[in-house]
């Protein structure tokens, strides 16, 4: 069997190291006397759980945490729990769980290993406990180191009067003027609202042509050229002439359909002439 340091009881010249939290020091021989004294103070509150208590107990072995004797530690812990029990101090459940586990571990460590046994060996369990204690200790030291750093607001300071950054909200208007004009138009045309409006400056509509031709046809007893029916001011501009011609022609077709007038064209592309339909 290899020699595992944390399994070896550490020889201690002082057979009764004082237990933390228990005053006066309690070891087996003193226990009765101490109990009689009734000045015992068990300060379980001072510990952050059983691991913390174990860590404190292990410190009394005055050795590197990797060298601690888990056996001795188990004894010390169990003694502590016994003491608390004797004093009828209610220990939190996790302290008792740890006690049971340590008692179990102790028995496994003392007995020769059972080759049939499953699960981790007693040595592995003890090693893990040692690891846990070392890790907790390391974290505790790390916390202390952290707190000892040059801290902001204590050793290092930020600008005491930070300058205010004004948030300038710029509103971007992509169609600002259009919005404005639309809004205005919307307001001003609310009463004469038309769902669809189109400015037909250059478009002569068929309705307009119908009105015009209906009015004029009464005077056209003889064949008259279509061009004569075009409205005034629509002859010069080609676009306007085209629109007016088309509208007027469409209007004559409509009136012909209604039997109001007759249309004639002598040849292809010859001028179109119309006249009122004789009664």
């Amino acid at each position, binding site marked *: 069997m290899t020699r595992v340091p944390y399994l070896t009881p550490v020889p201690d010249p002082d057979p009764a190291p004082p237990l933390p939290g228990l005053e006066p020091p309690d070891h087996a021989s003193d226990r009765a006397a101490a109990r009689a004294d009734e000045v015992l103070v068990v300060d379980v509150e001072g510990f952050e759980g059983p691991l913390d208590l174990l860590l404190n107990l292990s410190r009394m072995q005055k050795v590197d945490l990797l060298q601690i004797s888990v056996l001795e530690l188990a004894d010390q812990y169990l003694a502590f729990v016994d003491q608390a029990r004797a004093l009828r101090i209610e220990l939190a459940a996790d302290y008792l769980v740890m006690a049971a586990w340590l008692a179990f571990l102790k028995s496994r460590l003392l007995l020769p290993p059972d080759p049939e046994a499953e699960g981790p060996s007693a040595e592995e369990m003890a090693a893990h406990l040692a690891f846990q204690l070392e890790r907790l200790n390391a974290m505790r030291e790390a916390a202390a180191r952290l707190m000892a750093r040059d801290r902001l607001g204590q050793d290092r*300071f930020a600008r*005491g009067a930070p*300058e205010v950054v*004004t*948030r300038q909200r710029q509103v971007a*208007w992509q169609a600002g*003027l259009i919005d404005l004009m639309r809004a*205005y138009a919307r307001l001003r045309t609310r009463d004469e609202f038309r769902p669809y409006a189109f400015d037909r400056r250059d478009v002569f509509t068929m309705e307009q042509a119908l009105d015009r031709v209906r009015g004029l046809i009464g005077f056209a007893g003889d064949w008259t050229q279509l061009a004569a029916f075009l409205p005034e001011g629509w002859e010069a501009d080609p676009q306007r002439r085209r629109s007016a011609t088309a509208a007027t022609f469409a209007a004559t077709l409509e009136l012909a359909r209604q039997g109001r007038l007759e249309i004639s064209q002598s040849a292809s592309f010859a001028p179109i002439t119309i006249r009122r339909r004789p009664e």
Partner: protein
Amino acid sequence: MTDEPLDPHRFSPPPLPEQERMVEAVLFASAHPMSLREIAARLPKGCDPAEVMQSLCARYEGRGVQLARVGDAWAFRTAADLGFLMQESMVESRRLSRAATETLAIIAYHQPVTRAEIEEIRGVAVSKGTLDQLIELEWVRIGRRRQTPGRPVTFVVTEAFLDHFGLESARDLPGLAELRAAGLLESRPQAALAPTLFRDEDVEADASGALADDLFEDE
């Protein structure tokens, strides 16, 4: 505290460069400008903040931060020419509410116009927030009071408004006929239309004429 050297000559003060560091740190961390006396109170005995301040000022000469004198006191301040960095300009394209746009339009077209007149045109009450917003945007300001009973205040558009909307004057705003001619009374979007479309002189005269007799007689 009681062990503090009472006799300034007992211990010599820190060397000047060290004092400079100290003043620098103390001023930096202070929430308020500090007078020379306040600074001296923080430093070890025997320090002379006045002397230090001079060299510290020189050190920050031309830097992005400067030591500024505030009354009798001193403080670090952003260099004046970098003040623009202290503004976080967030360009947020938000649309003015419909109420605000309409109100602005009415003011632009009819200025000077009273609140009652705006309400008459819009057909609804103008909330205080709307006018406040326009005034805050510096697009609208308060004009002279109308010489009518109650002497109501009038609203007019500002230079900033003209600037923002690229107008020479509020009279440049197109009239109804032009709006219609430009298709602005249609429901379909006409975002591409630019105001230069309506430079036509005749229509201009027409429109503003129509505008003027619409509602109000300006004086």
